[in-house]
């Protein structure tokens, strides 16, 4: 016999779908099937059931082989590494729950570490921009029920947030959007003809790295000022038309992703996009929202913000919180050789950081806490596998629109495995002893 669990929350992307149905064996130990999730979400659940899963910590030996160690030995190694480092970096946090993040930050404060989350290579520039000029945003529910002008700027939800368009932004029939897709106009700004762009009413194929100019041109068009004939590869007439289309809507929303945050101009792109949103509010109602990637990167920003006042790239080395991406951000710290120990949790810098940074991780004492085998676990000295958050343990996560959602435990983890929070609590207590604070 099996039983079906409903309203399960998907721990994959920032859309944080909460309508999944999961079939588990009667004893609650095996996960059989997943319904309603996208293909990536389904894989995330099923991946926890693989037979070759690593269930105990492993320490890298001088010859490059791995030796299985106990969780207690792993706790000792991690606590010693953090206690002895002058400037450890504690990076990741985006694929674990807020409870674990909170314990991790206690460790960081005690160790005098730098804490950073995956926004550093993702929506960090968004955070910088919203500090500079604010963020007129809303919830995904408002978009479902009200929005009739949808802009996807430098993002491709068809592949990166597969259920975003069907649950919130394009297809659903909301209270004021009863005709679903027919009641909305969709504008996509992307240099590539993506699968999202193929669905658009208007596709502005912007020249690569010229989003800032195009956003600026939208604002110039709103002011009815002079424009050059072509901006960013797009004729001025087409820009004026698109600006009018935005103006004539009842409720508009700009969604944006890595195509603007991690290309030339970075935070300035977002800065100008927010300014455009503000500008459009002189004519109609407009909002803007980042398409957050990891399911709880928003939560990491929330918890860091609540505890230290800054949402990412926090430097606690001198006992108080400092923040200045460019100085205190992970890529810069690693590329410049500013840190002497690397603690990675719930993310994969090995796959996403520049190779010079990954080389530095290989040179210094390093710990990787991750249920999966990743390039980061491969390059780290200690790999600590833990239970899958959102599958084998519940906890709190924040959706891309800053709505907190409680995730559910679906199955038991393999016998004897610790969760992120349990492992971090042990490290915190051991570090307290080492620092003489217990």
């Amino acid at each position: 016999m099996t039983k079906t669990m409903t309203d399960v929350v998907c721990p994959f992307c920032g859309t944080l779908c909460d309508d999944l149905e999961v079939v588990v064996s009667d004893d609650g130990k095996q996960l059989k099937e997943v319904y309603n999730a996208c293909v990536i979400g389904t894989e995330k659940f099923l991946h926890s059931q693989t037979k070759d899963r690593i269930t105990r910590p492993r320490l890298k030996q001088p010859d490059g082989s791995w030796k299985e160690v106990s969780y207690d030995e792993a706790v000792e190694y991690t606590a010693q590494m953090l206690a002895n480092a002058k400037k450890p970096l504690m990076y990741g946090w985006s694929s674990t729950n807020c409870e674990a993040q909170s314990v991790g930050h206690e460790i960081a404060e005690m160790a005098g570490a730098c804490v950073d989350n995956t926004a550093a290579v993702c929506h960090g520039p968004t955070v910088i921009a919203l500090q500079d000029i604010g963020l007129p945003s809303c919830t995904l529910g408002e978009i479902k029920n009200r929005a009739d002008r949808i802009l996807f700027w430098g993002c491709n939800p068809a592949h990166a947030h597969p259920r975003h368009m069907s649950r919130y932004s394009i297809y659903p029939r909301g209270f004021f959007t009863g005709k679903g897709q027919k009641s909305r106009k969709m504008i996509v700004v992307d240099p590539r003809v993506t699968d999202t762009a193929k669905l658009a009413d208007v596709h502005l194929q912007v020249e690569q790295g010229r989003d800032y100019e195009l956003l600026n041109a939208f604002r110039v068009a709103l002011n009815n000022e002079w424009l050059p004939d072509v901006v960013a590869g797009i004729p001025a007439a087409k820009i004026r038309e698109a600006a009018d289309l935005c103006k004539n809507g009842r409720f508009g929303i700009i969604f944006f992703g890595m195509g603007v945050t991690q290309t030339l101009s970075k935070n300035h792109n977002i800065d100008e996009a927010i300014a455009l949103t503000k500008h459009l509010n002189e004519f109609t109602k407009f909002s803007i929202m980042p398409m957050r990637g990891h399911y709880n990167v928003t939560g990491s920003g929330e918890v860091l913000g609540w505890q230290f006042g800054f949402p990412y790239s926090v430097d606690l080395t001198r006992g108080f919180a400092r923040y200045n991406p460019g100085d205190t951000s992970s890529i810069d710290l690693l590329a410049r050789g500013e840190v002497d120990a690397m603690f990675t949790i719930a993310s994969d810098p090995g796959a996403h950081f520049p190779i010079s940074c990954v080389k530095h991780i290989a040179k210094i004492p390093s710990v990787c806490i991750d249920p999966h085998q990743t390039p980061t676990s491969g390059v780290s000295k200690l790999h600590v596998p833990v239970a899958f958050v959102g599958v084998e343990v519940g906890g709190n996560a924040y959706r891309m629109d800053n709505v907190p959602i409680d995730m559910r435990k679906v199955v038991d983890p393999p016998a004897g495995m610790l969760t992120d929070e349990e492992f971090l609590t042990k490290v915190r207590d051991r570090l307290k002893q080492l620092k003489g604070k217990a």
Partner: protein
Amino acid sequence: METVTITMKNPPALYLEADNICPDKFAGKTALQIADLHVFEGNTTSTIGKYFDVSGNAGASAADTKIVVKGDVKKVKYIGMKMSAGEIGVEGSTDLYAGAWMTGGKLTVKGNVEAFAATGMKGGELVIEGNAGNYLGAAYRGDWRGMSGGKILVKGNAGSDVGMYMLGGEITINGNVDVHVMTHAEGGKVIIKGNAKSKLGGQLVDGTIIVYGTIDVMMPGYKPIGTVELEVDGAKSKFAHFIGDTGERKKKRKGQIVYGNLYKKV
């Protein structure tokens, strides 16, 4: 003026935060007392004397104190931070935040400086004989007040985001600059003797940018309004005149809309 010479003898393994290397902090102290001032390497606190040889006593006040920094200080941050008077001469290159928030005096760096030099500068003079990094004379993160006074001269090239949120003062760059010059600025002047790339004066409310070389891509919010003759550093030349950013909010002065000015040599 008394001169204190500090020479790097024991370079840090990581990076050093040395905001105490500043005439205001050295003033009235002997070499021995200066060697006892704090520096920070990661989460450890130690003294200037651990890393530097210190010779010479400081003057009674900051204005009477000159600091000469010798040896490899490429990994030393915050030199001359918040200095209000006196002089600092760095004989090599230095790291982040050189002359940040300085209000007076003169800081000369013979080599290069990294990012965030002269962040929020209010007065004084900063001369960089090599290249400058990103965010020269810009605002600190989240702040809307960049450089508001003083003078910066870069003899080499400068990075991106020169004069972001600039309010006043003058920056001269003899070489080339990277993208974004005077973004969000509400005053001040940036003179670029070399070439500029793109995104000059984006979201600029007020201020002046003068470019002698080429501009790869102009911002669409800059409207050409003719040519003018300008006198810069005593030499007259003809410039194409653009006003903008026409997409950004505008201020009014005596009933007239104030635009930022961009001049490009013809």
